[in-house]
């Protein structure tokens, strides 16, 4: 396939994905913004004022980076899983599969669509957070880098979920029973220094812990972990997941009989 054809196909998939989540903005954009705003009000403002400081910052300032990251993770993941699965369900994925588009272009299109939604919601949540806390922005490059890689990793994860999903229950099982607990236990609301040594060790096995902490480091300049190590993990996760997605597409798992 000629390069410009691939670019047009890629652009078409991305535009279709963005158009989809913008068309149903009341389902895709609004709920996470309202939910995260409630976290700001209840945990950050009301409860947080009783907690005092965490990691050397006001509790509100401490949880804002984690909550922004939660929005990015959940929306990147759910955009790809719901979009690709609904295309499987309606069989409109066949439009893509009969067309002369390489698998990596198909995957990239869906992933960029998922990242677009994750980043849009993350951006809106960040704007809302400015009403509640000052964000010093310690390092722009680390902040942007980690948020991009995180949305990439979870978009790829959503794609794998969609490939294996056979019904709508399969689309919600992983976000509800895996993703949400990992986010909540990933140091969004607390510093792992508060935990006993054993649970600190367990927390370090949670990949989201590294993402949240690196993002927090980018904004506040404080972290429980080595940022370079966290970036290396993110790149490794992204590469492994990308490879797995391409392998599944090549095999036709869940999409070709």
């Amino acid at each position, binding site marked *: 396939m000629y390069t410009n054809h691939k670019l047009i*196909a890629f652009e078409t*998939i991305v535009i279709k994905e963005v*158009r*989809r989540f913008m068309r149903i903005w009341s389902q895709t954009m609004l709920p996470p913004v309202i939910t995260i705003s409630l976290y700001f009000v209840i945990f950050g403002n009301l409860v947080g004022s009783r907690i005092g400081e965490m990691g050397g910052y006001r509790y509100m300032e401490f949880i804002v980076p984690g909550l922004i990251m939660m929005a990015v993770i959940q929306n990147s993941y759910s955009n790809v899983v719901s979009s690709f699965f609904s295309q499987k369900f309606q*069989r409109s994925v066949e439009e*893509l599969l*009969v067309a002369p588009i390489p698998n990596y272009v198909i995957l990239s299109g869906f992933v960029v669509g998922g990242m677009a939604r994750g980043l849009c919601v993350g951006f809106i949540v960040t704007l809302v957070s400015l009403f509640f806390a000052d964000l010093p922005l310690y390092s722009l490059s680390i902040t942007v880098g980690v948020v991009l890689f995180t949305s990439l990793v979870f978009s790829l994860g959503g794609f794998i979920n969609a490939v294996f999903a056979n019904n709508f229950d399969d689309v919600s099982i992983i976000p509800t029973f895996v993703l949400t607990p990992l986010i909540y236990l990933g140091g969004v609301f607390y510093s792992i220094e508060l935990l006993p040594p054993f649970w600190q060790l367990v927390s370090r096995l949670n990949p989201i812990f590294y993402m949240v902490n690196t993002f927090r480091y980018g904004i506040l300049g404080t972290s429980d972990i080595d940022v370079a190590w966290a970036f290396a993990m993110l790149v490794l996760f992204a590469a492994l997941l990308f490879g797995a997605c391409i392998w599944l597409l090549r095999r036709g798992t869940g999409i070709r*009989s």
Partner: protein
Amino acid sequence: MTIAISVSKLEKVYASGVAALKGVSLEIEQGDFFALLGPNGAGKSTFIGILSTLVRRTGGDVRIFGRDVDTHLYQTKLDLGVVPQEINFSQFEKVADIVMTQAGYYGLPRKLAVHRAEKYLKQLGLWEKRDTRSRLLSGGMKRRMMIARALVHEPRLLILDEPTAGVDIELRRSMWDFLLDINSSGTTIVLTTHYLEEAEQLCRNIAIIDEGNIIENTSMKKLLLELDVHAYILDTEHDLDADLEHKEPGLVLRKVDSHSIEAVVSGGRDINSAIAVLDRLGIRILSMRNKANRLEQLFLSRLRESGNGSG
């Protein structure tokens, strides 16, 4: 003559163990309007699925316009347009967006995509519906939109899997005219249908598939010539006698109701002999039609011979 589709010893065994195709070999010439007929579950959709790469074959070779589909996947996909049996587009998108998106998947620049979308939506009578959400279209409109979508990259080979299923007769005939136009402009068309009249009207060559095997592959003309028994219904001007029945070698006439007669002509005789007999009896004929579609008779007879017919 260039061969548009060449399949050799094509096999498909699904994970469930069902053998849908058992070594199908078939060639379809460029420019042909080809009918692939068969009862439900015969293997037609599997065959089309393999051509369109939605189904992975378990054996055999497939060539599209002389190119192996495995080694020339990009070009063979570019040459192919597929209209599937099931509705397979997003129900929430607008008609024009669906066609434009498909154009984008094939790498068409936006300006060309807009032109093609307009051209085919207009030709298929859907231009006024271009901003309508696809779920709001009627069944016939959905089928036509899938044809427009399959044609937007102007493939050399168009595969239609029961394109007129559930479409009313008037619309079906206008779709036939459109498809004949497309075919006369050089597009090779492969059609599967349960309306045998449709295949008879449109197609020059035919294959009948049954239980994963090709049991007939010939020209429509040759196949219809093989039919040596023709049954007609003749409508008469006046009431018929209660006991009207006439038998002679190669001709049987019997009363169907007060104003119609069935004439069964065989053994090389033609309908003129039936009309001559009726004329002698003083029965005036107002109109005449085939009792059953001719291709249908042959189709059922072939299935019976292969052991799958109901008769």
